[in-house]
């Protein structure tokens, strides 16, 4: 009854009043803003129009941490939504909350819905799979970090615009020339920890933490103070000193600096493409992340970011049935391909990828398949299938704080990464104790 009341309040009484059928309501809390939010509503409307029994109500609940907090509060009050969109760093927290979530594979089995996790892209599904290979949450919006280059700026600096730097050595050579050509901001990055620690590790097949990056158990410890990690952070600090690297903040602030033309190179989410295409008044290319060719085995494959849909526990079987129907609808090739093409997120199923490829979309829109090719570059290893660290919201923050200290010239890379590991490990131990 309370769910009904809430739904009525949220959806507006008018929407429900005229409805004679007793439809089962499904609450879907998400964090998609702007065009992405419109797309979520479009998917929900598409689903609602496709059948009569269930009605999905998408509700925007603020940023990722905000909607997660809201759902936790709602759960404590005994009234969580059916579906909650949770960002990738919240995965371990959700997984550990055994009584609060309903694993997707379990729900599919209970409802008798045909479901084969192998249809999903390995690099995406692997991140959200338990050690037995069971999918716990439904992949939804996944991206990876890619490397954007302003081709016009390259031309101006006398560089070949068709040849984006592939290694960090190439990168340094290009950066020097761009700087000499008067480029005020040569390079910047969004999501510093995600790009330069998490994806750096996967791309070079280096562990982020022990126990298969935390997949193997909660007694994991971070290993991001390895000589290779320290050398990478030190290299960035050196770039910063030379004026080749401008730090822009912990989120996607850097993207605006790239599409305004202020910075000529950018590493950030592949999902930024749509926005960059809309705003940039220059030619740009989307490329693989640069790699360090001194590290053996690089490049490997990159890891995803973004979010998945978690199903909360304590709902009626009929409601779960509706959720399974929605998930099947979501993963259908047409819906997925549409989502992929309009948002820049990677398609979550192989079928959607094939559909998009066969339709010639990637030839018409160069760069849109870079993310998926990078994710699939090699078969994921235990270092590159993802990460699973408890309270990683805090852990990532610690890593970023320490990196900022290095970029500001206040700390050397070794000391900072040692501190990051020590502090982040304390957070892991606390999580382990709380979830014993």
């Amino acid at each position, binding site marked *: 009854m309370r769910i009904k009341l809430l739904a009525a309040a949220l959806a507006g009484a008018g929407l429900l009043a005229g409805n004679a059928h007793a439809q089962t309501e499904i609450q879907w809390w998400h964090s998609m803003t702007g065009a992405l939010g419109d797309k979520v509503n479009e998917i929900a409307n598409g689903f609602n129009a496709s059948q009569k029994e269930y009605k999905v109500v998408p509700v925007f609940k603020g940023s990722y941490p905000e909607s997660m907090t809201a759902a936790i509060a709602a759960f404590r009050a005994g009234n969580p939504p059916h579906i909650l969109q949770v960002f990738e760093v919240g995965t371990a*927290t959700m997984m550990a909350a055994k009584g609060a979530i309903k694993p997707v594979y379990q729900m599919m089995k209970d409802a008798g819905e045909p479901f084969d996790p192998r249809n999903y892209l390995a690099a995406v599904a692997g991140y959200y799979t338990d050690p037995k290979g069971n999918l716990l949450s439904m992949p939804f919006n996944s991206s990876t970090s890619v490397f954007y280059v302003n081709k016009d700026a390259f031309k101006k600096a006398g560089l070949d615009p068709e040849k984006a730097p592939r290694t960090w050595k190439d990168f340094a050579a290009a950066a020097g020339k761009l700087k000499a050509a008067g480029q005020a901001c040569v390079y910047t990055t969004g999501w510093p920890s995600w790009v330069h620690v998490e994806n750096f590790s996967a791309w070079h097949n280096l562990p982020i933490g022990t126990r298969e990056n935390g997949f193997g158990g909660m007694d994991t410890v971070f290993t991001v103070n390895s000589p290779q990690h320290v050398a990478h952070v030190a290299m960035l600090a050196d770039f910063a000193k030379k004026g080749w690297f401008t730090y822009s903040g912990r989120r996607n602030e850097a993207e605006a600096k790239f599409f305004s033309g202020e910075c000529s190179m950018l590493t950030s989410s592949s999902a930024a493409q749509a926005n960059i295409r809309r705003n940039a008044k220059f030619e740009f290319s989307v490329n693989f992340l640069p790699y360090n060719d001194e590290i053996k085995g690089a490049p490997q494959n990159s890891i995803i970011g973004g979010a998945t849909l978690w199903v909360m526990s304590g709902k009626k079987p009929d409601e779960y049935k509706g959720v399974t129907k929605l998930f099947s609808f979501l993963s259908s090739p047409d819906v997925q391909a549409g989502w992929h093409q309009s948002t820049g997120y990677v398609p979550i199923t192989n079928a959607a990828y094939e559909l998009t490829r066969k339709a010639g979309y990637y030839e018409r829109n160069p760069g849109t398949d870079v993310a998926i090719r990078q994710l699939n570059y090699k078969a994921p290893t235990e270092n590159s299938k993802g990460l699973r660290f408890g309270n990683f919201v805090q852990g990532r923050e610690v890593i970023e704080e320490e990196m900022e200290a290095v970029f500001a010239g206040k700390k050397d890379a070794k000391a900072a990464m040692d501190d990051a590991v020590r502090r982040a490990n304390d957070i892991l131990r606390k999580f382990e104790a709380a979830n014993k």
Partner: protein
Amino acid sequence: MEKRVVFRSAWLPFALVAPQIAVTIIFFFWPAAQAIWFSFQLQDAFGLKTQFVGAANFLALLQDAHYLKSFRITALFSILVAFLGIAISLLLATMADRVVRGALAYKTLLIWPYAVAPAVAGVLWAFLFAPSVGIITYALKQIGIEWNWVLQGDQAMLLVVIAAVWKQISYNFLFFLAGLQSIPRSLVEAAAIDGAGPARRFWTVVFPLLSPTTFFLLVVNIVYAFFDTFGVIDATTQGGPAGATQILVYKVYYDGVKAADLGGSSAQSAILMAIVIALTVVQFRFIERKVQY
């Protein structure tokens, strides 16, 4: 002879204060007690498992160098905000008090910022000082100052102090103006006849007479800097870079709400509560004695 009104009824006075007491208990004492109770516990995010861990949360905090650094940052921030906020508004109030023509317009304009929500004030200043698009950043670049508070901790601190002070000046201004207007003209005029210049008149006559107001504002501003500046910080630096603007109350919010670490966050708020109680006691016991009412 003082005339006192006495209630004849035994229960009526209690009934009359009961709503106030009830509000205080429900909205202040009850949550405070709950925070203290949570501070001895370790809970997972969803509250599925709860363990009593004694003082472990507190010990972990005291061993955390970054938490201790947060104390220094809070002290610096509060002193800067309280001092600058009081000094600037005192200057403005003194000036406005002397203005004869258009006094109302000046006063209204000075009071305006108080109506702005802290978060909006933060965003406003963040825009002006934005590392690549801000107008002030642009001006600073012209005179050769590299401005990037996203990376430079000192600049980030300066930004939040400016935003927090700007927001509080109106409030202080109002009180100072009222204080100034209640100072008898005859005292100031007498000092002037004795040959004291404006500066001397201010420091020997006006300022001591304003001391109750100044003291009151000191208490209010310190509390403001400790708690209410949260919105300013959340809208601008979010505690960064490298924790340079991570004041205690922001860390409480971050750990509790964003990181879902209820025990650690409650322990911090218990400590914060103790600090503010101690500060207020000190202020009233030692500083208030020097105040002439």
